[in-house]
């Protein structure tokens, strides 16, 4: 017979079972949604992540558990690494590498900005001097990749090297990507002179269809030769880009750019959110990760700018060093910020297209960095 007492009824309510940590994490979820909806912070990811955080912290329901829908999605999509790789395919299909092909030297800006990753790695290890922190080399590598300013790369690497920190790392990565318009401009103004910011770059040359088709093969070839551990990421990115550029598979290109990436984004977000459970997230380590993330973005921006200044010198003033800041990735936000800061100084100086080169170079750069960390730490 079904028990009727008020006690068992009360015991099945959330009120009786809610722990303060869960309530707090639901608050964090609401905050992420607030930032996404009102402040327009990367809403495509932060709305599902925030809602996933709420759902996973509901007591008794077990939505994020091994028998819950978010648990299933996490196991199938994130633990296997499939979802971030499909996002990378979609990113490849959505990205026009034309600006990069027109100015291959801007790849160096994308390389320099990865310095943020490795400095942050040191920072994470140094945090171990503070009691309460105990980051392994794998943890530190997963945290450091936040400096790559590339969401799917961060999720992919964290799922491989440090699944327990995945929630905090993903939240930090997407939050700072959204904060790029606030973090970067002061650093840009600090490190460049007005003369430098004033540089008007010459118009980009035409890029032929053949170059665009060969480009993914060139990138993949180098990846195969030098760094096969980055091949899953680079492989799916270049596959998506080939679908886009080859011109004979419009149906598949469209599916990658729309259906697949949209569906995966919803599920990826929910599954990442399911890692924002109180016991995993409400730790001192999360604070460290958030601090290190901000640090990583600043360093990456700075080293990108410094490389920009070097190229400014070397080319005799043909390169506007501001575009170095776009090397951190955070596509296309960082390129837009460059454009905006450029316009502040010179109302006729549109740097958007020139900044797209280092911007997409940053994506390749952080995938390369992820491959290195996987090869040397993940083994």
């Amino acid at each position: 017979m079904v028990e009727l007492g008020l006690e068992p009824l009360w015991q099945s309510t959330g009120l009786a079972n809610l722990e303060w940590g869960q309530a707090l994490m639901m608050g964090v979820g609401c905050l992420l949604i607030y930032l996404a909806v009102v402040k327009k912070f990367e809403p495509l990811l932060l709305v599902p992540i925030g809602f996933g955080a709420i759902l996973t912290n509901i007591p008794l329901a077990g939505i994020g558990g091994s028998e819950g829908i978010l648990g299933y999605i996490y196991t199938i999509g994130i633990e296997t690494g499939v979802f971030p790789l499909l996002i990378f395919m979609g990113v490849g299909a959505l990205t026009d590498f034309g600006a990069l092909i027109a100015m291959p030297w801007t790849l160096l800006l994308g390389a320099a900005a990865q310095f943020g990753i490795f400095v942050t790695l040191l920072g994470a290890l140094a945090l171990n001097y503070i009691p309460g922190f105990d980051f392994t080399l794998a943890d530190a590598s997963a945290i450091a990749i936040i400096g790559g300013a590339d969401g799917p790369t961060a999720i992919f690497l964290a799922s491989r090297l440090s699944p327990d920190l995945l929630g905090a790392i993903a939240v930090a990565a997407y939050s700072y990507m959204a904060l790029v318009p606030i973090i970067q401009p002061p650093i840009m103004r600090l490190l460049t002179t007005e003369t430098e910011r004033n540089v008007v770059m010459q118009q980009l040359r035409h890029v032929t269809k053949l170059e665009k088709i060969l480009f993914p093969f060139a990138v993949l070839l180098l990846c195969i030769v030098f760094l096969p551990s980055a091949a899953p990421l680079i492989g799916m990115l270049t596959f998506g880009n080939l679908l886009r550029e080859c011109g004979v598979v419009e149906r598949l290109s469209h599916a990658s750019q729309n259906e697949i990436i949209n569906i995966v984004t919803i599920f990826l977000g929910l599954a990442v959110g399911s890692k924002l459970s109180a016991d995993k997230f409400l730790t001192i380590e999360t604070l460290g990760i958030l601090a290190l993330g901000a640090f990583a973005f600043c360093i990456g921006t700075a080293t990108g700018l410094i490389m920009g200044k070097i190229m400014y010198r070397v080319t005799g003033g043909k390169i506007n060093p501001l575009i170095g800041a776009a090397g951190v990735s955070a596509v296309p936000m960082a390129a837009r910020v460059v454009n905006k800061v450029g316009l502040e100084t010179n109302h006729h100086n549109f740097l958007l297209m020139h900044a797209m080169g280092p911007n997409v170079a940053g994506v390749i750069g952080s995938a390369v960095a992820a491959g290195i960390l996987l090869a040397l730490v993940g083994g």
Partner: protein
Amino acid sequence: MPITDLLLSGVNLMAIGMGIVFTFLLVLVFTMKGMSKLALLVTQRQGGVEALSSQPSVGGREQVGIRGDLIAVITAAINRYRMTHS
């Protein structure tokens, strides 16, 4: 592992890592330059440069173009309609 050793590993990682990143992207620069030259050769030999070369500007996609046309046409239709209606 003691923290000092960890930090040493980290420094090593940074050295190797930035080394590979720069090497990789630097080699990619030259690969792309070679690729572009090759593409230019192939395209020129085929004569029909126009056929293979993409749009002048880097950004635009076909779909956008179509929508743009549609909007232009409709705008024109509206204006026409309003003009003759008033």
